[in-house]
């Protein structure tokens, strides 16, 4: 053996080192790539989780009932001032694009039928309103401030999320984008 040939560490040491480096690379890659563990809602491009809720009349409505149609999911409460403020715009846009298949499904956060019906009748809302009695749907959708709206395209995937009061122009641009899909 010439002196130029390096005297390496024994095989078990070198194999262990290779193993450690490999697992380290995989580990850091996994931790970096994994979906964020924090609740930030449903990301754009991912399917909107289906749910089944009841209206004030006790009728069952599923999100998947509207498959193939562009849907706006509007999470609201009757006591929240910005929710009330955006409702007239929602109603106007709904009337305008209803014929083209556009649906607004309003999800109320566990209020009494009386409060919802009074709210609906006062503002003249004609789109379906369902009640999330157990907060399960709003938890799934990561709803923090009210109102929050999700836009679900014809393919059932989330197109956009809007927190806070939405303007009529913004709403129309979302609706046009979804109809064009």
């Amino acid at each position: 053996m010439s002196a130029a040939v390096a005297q390496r560490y024994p095989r078990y040491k070198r194999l262990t080192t290779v193993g450690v480096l490999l697992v380290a690379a995989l580990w850091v890659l996994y931790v970096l790539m994994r979906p964020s563990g924090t609740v930030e809602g449903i990301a754009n491009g991912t399917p909107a989780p289906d749910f089944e809720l009841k209206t004030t009349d006790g009728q069952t409505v599923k999100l998947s009932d509207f498959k193939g149609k562009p849907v706006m999911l509007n999470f609201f409460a009757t006591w929240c001032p910005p929710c009330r403020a955006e409702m007239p715009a929602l109603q106007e846009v709904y009337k305008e694009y209803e014929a083209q298949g556009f649906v607004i499904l309003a999800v109320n956060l566990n209020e009494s039928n009386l409060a919802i019906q009074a709210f609906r009748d006062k503002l003249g809302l004609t789109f379906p309103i369902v009640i999330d009695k157990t907060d399960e749907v709003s938890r799934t959708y990561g709803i923090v401030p009210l109102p929050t709206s999700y836009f679900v395209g014809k393919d059932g995937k989330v197109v956009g999320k809007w927190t806070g009061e939405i303007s009529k122009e913004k709403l129309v641009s979302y609706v046009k984008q979804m109809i064009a899909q």
Partner: protein
Amino acid sequence: MDEQVVTEETTAPEPEKPSKDFLDRTWDFFASVPVAVVLLFIVAAASVAGTLVPQEGMYSDWRTPSEFYPFRYGAFWGNLLWKTGMTRMYTSWWFMGLLFMVGASLIICSLERFIPLWKAVQRPNIAPPSSFVKHLKNRFEYKPVAGAEALAPLAAALKSAHYTVVQKDGRIYADKGRWGRWGPYILHIGLIFILVGAMVRVFPGAYMDQFIWVQDGEIAKVPGANWFVRNDKFTLETYENGQPKAYKTQAVIIEADGTESKEHTISMNLPLQHKWIELYQSSYKNEVGTAVVSLTDRATKQQIGTFTLDLHQPETAYKVGAYTVKINEYFPDFGLEGGKPVSRSSQVNNPGAVLEVIGPDGKAYKNWYFVAYPEMEFDPTTPVTLGTEEVTERYTTGLKVKKDLGIPVIWFGLIVVSLSVCVTFYLPHRRYWALVEDGRVFVGGWTNRNQTSFGDEMNRLANRIDPKNNPLQTVVEGEER
């Protein structure tokens, strides 16, 4: 090993000394004890830092993390904390990386020392130089009985003391308690389990920390599970001054198919455990449930009748005898904003309503009605007054939903650690070497722990084989007399 590293880093490499490649250097890095100490110190410091910054999901604010931290700490520091993962430290990539490095350091440091030790213990040198045996601290010698096999009595004595005895070429090697040498390495295995337990939570479905509200008598789905929990009754015990003393929830687990599989009263430190998920008593809400409302004729002060108003799900109209009470407007959490009546939330904290009373004559009168303050009328001329006869409370329990599959792994690690401590302290490794020279048998012994007890053992052994030359040295009173 360590010396090599030092010379290599401080002086120019000598020509005949081959330089180490990347793999060997990596091994050296993780095999170094100072590196391990520094890593542990950083992990400890980071863990402390993580308790100082409110972690995501732990702070009580409606803002999302990307909004909350800049709001709380200012734009620069808030974004820095959030972007570097200080706000979800125990799952951040760098903290997980640090834990991994501690694990690698533990494994490599152990191997570096364990492999040579394993060889020394499992393949001992049976025939060391006689000077080694003769100069051991614990030693004795004896004169074998003429004509008999010189080493036979020693071998027999060691065997009866449960030693593993090897006899070869006129030599004896015997030892027991080899496991006593593995104590530190078992400890390291336990520590690695604890590290793995801390890292498990980054895998999907292994960790959850959520919160649910369940009203009395209601059923709620447990997040992250396919079963439900029903709150049969929430009870609040208070001290005389009104301070809460204890809260508990009588809970029932309902499986997806509707069967009730478990009943348990959840209270402080007594969570309900079901399928790796734990439900902890964490909070409660107290709201007005129902109110019995009375109608009284204002002029005659005669009560007309009563009705029960469910304040969580009021009807639009109630019949009281010949009278009808309609609810025109309802504010569960009454307040005034800009002079206008509003409900501040959907919680039934201060219920108020505009009621329309229609008499038998068909005439309708509107008036405000507050459950807690029925005397607050806005129109004192209506023929009928409204009163509150009875109010029931309705409790909502707040349950923390926790899941951490790392916990059993950490417990297992702790058991291994305590086993290793027992092994290290109560299982000494004892070794004997013996050889025959000049018609005498020289016996030397070594132990890694509890020298005094080993000395006693050896003295008794020597005394048994050759009492004449080896008198008992330390005799406890009353023993061996």
